[in-house]
């Protein structure tokens, strides 16, 4: 039996892919934003923190990094309601998972960023009489932001691809849209030859945009 390519089925449901892509991007943006808050907070906390604090942060990072993301997705969606009682809708649950996951990676990124701030800049801040909080706000964070921007870009692209796991919770993101079309039309080749380039091109465009941003904020630039 010969397989005839027919893309009409894909075009017919193109809106599912379009809205799926939008949701994927939303999931990635929200997760990296929350992940940044988690990562930055823990990175700052662990600077000069006591042993137990650093240990707890280290446990979190190691746990998340050494467990498959899919398992985390299930754990948060099925596990938390079963022990704690509060259940979230699938999308919220997935955002929580991806944020926790992003946070664990970003702790390390921010910690490295903080360490990469030239000591002389901190001395300069102290020498003009800035308080520790002012030094963090006006010297350390702006400098660190420029140092970690490339790593943040990479993390974001990576998270964007990871949003595809939300399909297992029936969150209607891009992968779920693709799965839906496939199960309803059985046009597997057509679906994947369309969806793969969507991921690819979107990733590429994002990367290009982020590289532009990086250049604008390159060390020493504004």
């Amino acid at each position, binding site marked *: 039996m010969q397989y005839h390519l027919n893309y009409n089925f894909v075009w017919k449901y193109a809106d599912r892919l379009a809205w799926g892509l939008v949701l994927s991007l939303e999931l990635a943006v929200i997760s990296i934003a929350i992940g940044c808050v988690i990562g930055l907070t823990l990175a700052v906390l662990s600077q000069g923190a006591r042993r137990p604090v650093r240990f707890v942060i280290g446990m979190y990072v190691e746990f998340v990094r050494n467990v498959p993301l899919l398992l985390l997705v299930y754990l948060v969606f099925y596990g938390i309601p079963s022990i704690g009682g509060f259940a979230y809708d699938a999308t919220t649950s997935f955002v929580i998972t991806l944020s926790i996951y992003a946070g664990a990676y970003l702790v390390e990124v921010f910690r490295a960023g903080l360490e990469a701030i*030239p000591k*002389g*800049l901190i*001395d*300069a*801040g*102290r*020498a*003009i*009489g*800035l*308080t*520790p909080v*002012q030094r963090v706000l*006006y*010297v350390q964070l*702006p*400098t660190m932001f*420029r140092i970690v921007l490339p790593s943040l870009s990479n993390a974001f692209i990576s998270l964007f691809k990871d949003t595809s796991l939300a399909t297992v919770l029936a969150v209607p993101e891009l992968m779920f849209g693709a799965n839906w079309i496939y199960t309803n039309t059985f046009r597997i080749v057509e679906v994947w030859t369309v969806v793969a380039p969507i991921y690819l091109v979107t990733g590429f465009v994002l990367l290009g945009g982020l590289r532009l941003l990086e250049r604008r904020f390159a*060390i*020493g*630039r*504004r």
Partner: protein
Amino acid sequence: MSVSEPLVKVRGVTKAFGSNNVLNGVDLDVPRGSVVSIIGASGSGKTTLLRCVNLLESYDSGSIEVDGVEVGYDIADGRRRPRGERDLARIRADIGMVFQMFNLFPHLTATENVMLGLRKVRGMAKAEARATAEQWLVRVGLGDKLASLPIEMSGGQQQRVGIARAVAMNPKVLLLDEITSALDPELVGEVLKVVRELARDGMTMMLVTHEMSFARDVSSRVVFMDGGRVAVEGTPREVFGAPAQSERLRGFLARIELREV
């Protein structure tokens, strides 16, 4: 307190990094309006001494007073407690420092580098801070670089921003640590010129330098440090003119002269 009391008074200061005793009882006076140059071989503790004066490093014993206030310790009911960060910030605001590697904030323009302390530490309104910053930058010859980022400036220009950033705070004393040693030789002059002008205007300065002819011209007193102590102290004429009093100083000066040729 009398006006003739030295602005900076260092007495018996010691400082160790682990088992490395870097300062071994330093005594030093910096009278108001005077320039004290500190010379000495690499590793003799010059940088550490300056950094103790504005508490970028703590000192272990002895005392450092700036304008009659012990900088490192709070002496309350006979007990000596290291000062907290808030206290330190307040004290440091009145002590300017210019660094060997400039240490300009890389994300801020020349004007913004100078404005930061004026705004956040002195609490100046934005317009006033900007005007003050620009005035100082013009004075150090950077009127055409106000909006430039550090990366867009030469070393000599960056260092002049560094000086403007420190003096704009209107410090009681200015600490300068080998501020020309990271510069290409042709850029040294423009920076030293600014320091000369500050000296002429009566700015009190402690400066560490390897530029011996500059030290000779600009200083009221010259201090030769050796092994974490003040080994020789006197007027430039005394120190450079008759170094015979110290074998170590003579050796040091000979090595420096050779390098300068």
